[in-house]
């Protein structure tokens, strides 16, 4: 294999740049030309290809976002567009493709691999919802940012004796909420995977008030319930509750990657290049049980990664 392409797709995640850097430089060391595809799958359709050399990726290790830019392209689900992408790759004499991204992006990648073209995925999403991997690039940074914010919010909660609802990202999965909640010392954590009972929450809050604990921190994933709606629900039972809502939103996405994400991204980049050169295809590179492993793309995107329920139980126990 002499020439491979690289793209980032879907939501940006901190550490994507570190992965780009690793792919480009490892590719260079292995004697492979690395072509950057701009704006994700859109760039595959437009043949927006630009060679990347080791110096092109200088100074990006510590930067959030992705220098290759990203996009969400719903029409990429159509077969003819996928075939057009392969055609464009072949016309540029590109023999393999690496896709850095999360669930949706790897689904697209899986579709491409089904045509027989050699592709490899790098697990990168702040949502951490790729089956077969323990952690995806960007998750650690996002959770650290969320914990940092919760720490700051706690100052206000304690000072004013208020109930703060902190809404974090996670439409279908509660990974961010669980880790941010446990790491941030939340009193309640609401995730899409586990049903919750408002009355029970309110009862626990009343019990705490009786013990003179006046402040509460509730972390909710946007997919479990929106912060504002939760506030309304609580007020139904406790009109007297002094509540505030903070939606962390896009702040969670960006920023310099943590040491964990930088190292993970560097490792996954290297393994992705080596997997392609070793003849692997249709696989996702991720970390599992502290080892870099290859997971069939099909499994990674079709099987549902479950929340660590032991961790959830622990969070309940330590918020007693």
């Amino acid at each position, binding site marked *: 294999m002499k020439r491979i392409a690289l793209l980032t797709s879907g939501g940006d995640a901190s550490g994507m740049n570190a992965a780009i850097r690793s792919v480009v430089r490892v590719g260079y060391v292995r004697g492979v030309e690395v072509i950057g595809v701009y704006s994700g799958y859109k760039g595959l359709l437009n043949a927006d290809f630009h060679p990347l050399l080791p110096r092109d990726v200088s100074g990006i290790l510590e930067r959030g976002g992705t220098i290759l830019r990203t996009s969400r392209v719903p029409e990429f689900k159509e077969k003819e567009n996928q075939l057009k992408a392969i055609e464009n790759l072949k016309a540029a004499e590109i023999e393999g493709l690496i896709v850095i991204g999360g669930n949706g992006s790897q689904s697209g990648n899986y579709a491409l691999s089904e045509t027989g073209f050699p592709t490899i995925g790098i697990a990168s999403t702040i949502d951490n919802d790729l089956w077969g991997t323990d952690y995806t690039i960007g998750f650690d940074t996002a959770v650290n940012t969320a914990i940092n914010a919760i*720490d700051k919010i706690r100052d206000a909660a304690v000072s004013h004796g208020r109930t703060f609802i902190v809404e974090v990202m996670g439409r279908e999965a509660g990974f961010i909420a669980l880790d941010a909640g446990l790491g941030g010392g939340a009193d309640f954590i609401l995730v899409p995977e586990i049903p919750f009972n408002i009355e029970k929450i309110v009862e626990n809050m009343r019990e705490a008030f009786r013990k003179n604990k006046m402040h509460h921190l509730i972390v909710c994933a946007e997919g479990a319930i929106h912060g504002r709606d939760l506030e309304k629900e609580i007020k139904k039972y406790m009109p007297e509750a002094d509540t505030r809502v903070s939606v962390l939103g896009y702040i969670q996405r*960006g920023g310099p990657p943590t040491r964990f994400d930088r190292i993970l991204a560097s490792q996954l980049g290297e393994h992705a290049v080596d997997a392609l050169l070793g003849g692997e295809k249709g696989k996702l590179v991720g970390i599992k049980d502290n080892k870099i492993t290859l997971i069939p793309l099909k499994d990674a995107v079709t099987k549902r990664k479950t929340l660590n329920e032991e961790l959830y139980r622990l969070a309940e126990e330590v918020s007693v």
Partner: protein
Amino acid sequence: MKIGVLTGGGDCPGLNPAIRGVVFRALDFGDEVIGIEQGWKGVMEKITRPLSLNEVDEIINFGGTILFTSRTNPFSIEGGPERAIQNLKELGIDALVAIGGDDTLGVASKLFDMGVKVVGVPKTMDNDLSGTDFTFGFDTSVNVAVDALNRLRDTARSHKRIIVFEVMGREAGWVALYTGIAGGADWVLIPEERPDFDAMCKHLEKDFERKGYALVVVSEGTELPIDSESEVDQFGHKLLQKRGVAEYVANLIKEKTGIPTRSAVIGHMQRGGSPTVFDRMLGTRAGVKAVDMIHQGDFGKMAALKGDKLISIPLKDATGKPKLVSKEWIELLKVFLK
């Protein structure tokens, strides 16, 4: 002497260093310090605890306030001021240090007129208190906001979007101004200037064409065409949280320019966190100065930062009229809108 100390209004980083400064300096005079909890509410309900060296020794790096706070206003309660004065007497408090923004200091000023020996220590994240160059809390909160804006830049650039970022600032746009200049925003909306949305959108289109993204910082108090009467608190302030300024501005940009635009609100995380060195130093110095003022009989005044000196100025001069962003600052801001 028995000195009472309280913190009122919104919490902000630097309150704990100020409390600590009061206690440390009071020890030099052999004073006893009584912490009054939850601001003026603690005066009304006599919620106090003694403050010793041990209790304040390690709080220099804590955000929030160990004395808790509230927005209780004795002057909006029937017979409130009289009860406050009576309670202070019963607690044996000879002099009071009130740490807070213009509401808390406004109460202090009125109580001084009624004979209470009180000195003020100004705090506000918004930095909108007249008579002081800076108040503690501002530096920390702007640092948090700048950090957040730079995170948003990563996302905006990656997705080719405009992001509208809402920061605190009710009447004055200092937080938005500093965040905008120090964080490298492409447009800044502040309460002092009626927004020119057409000019903004034109400018953002240009920025977007040049670099593929743009960042807008907006003050929560920015004037919007939709403004009407809304909920107010005990001091008569509008509760701004539900107005959704960032969302409004983002929708407007989306409609006018067709560029994908998102909004983000910093909210309460901007309030807390470990104070920066600047805020620790300012809080500490102001706490020390307040005790010195008490021993000089310099009541009815507050410890204000002027240049590099802490001086005492009348509470009346500080409260009432907010310090707004001046024309010179707006000119400076415009240098960076290109």
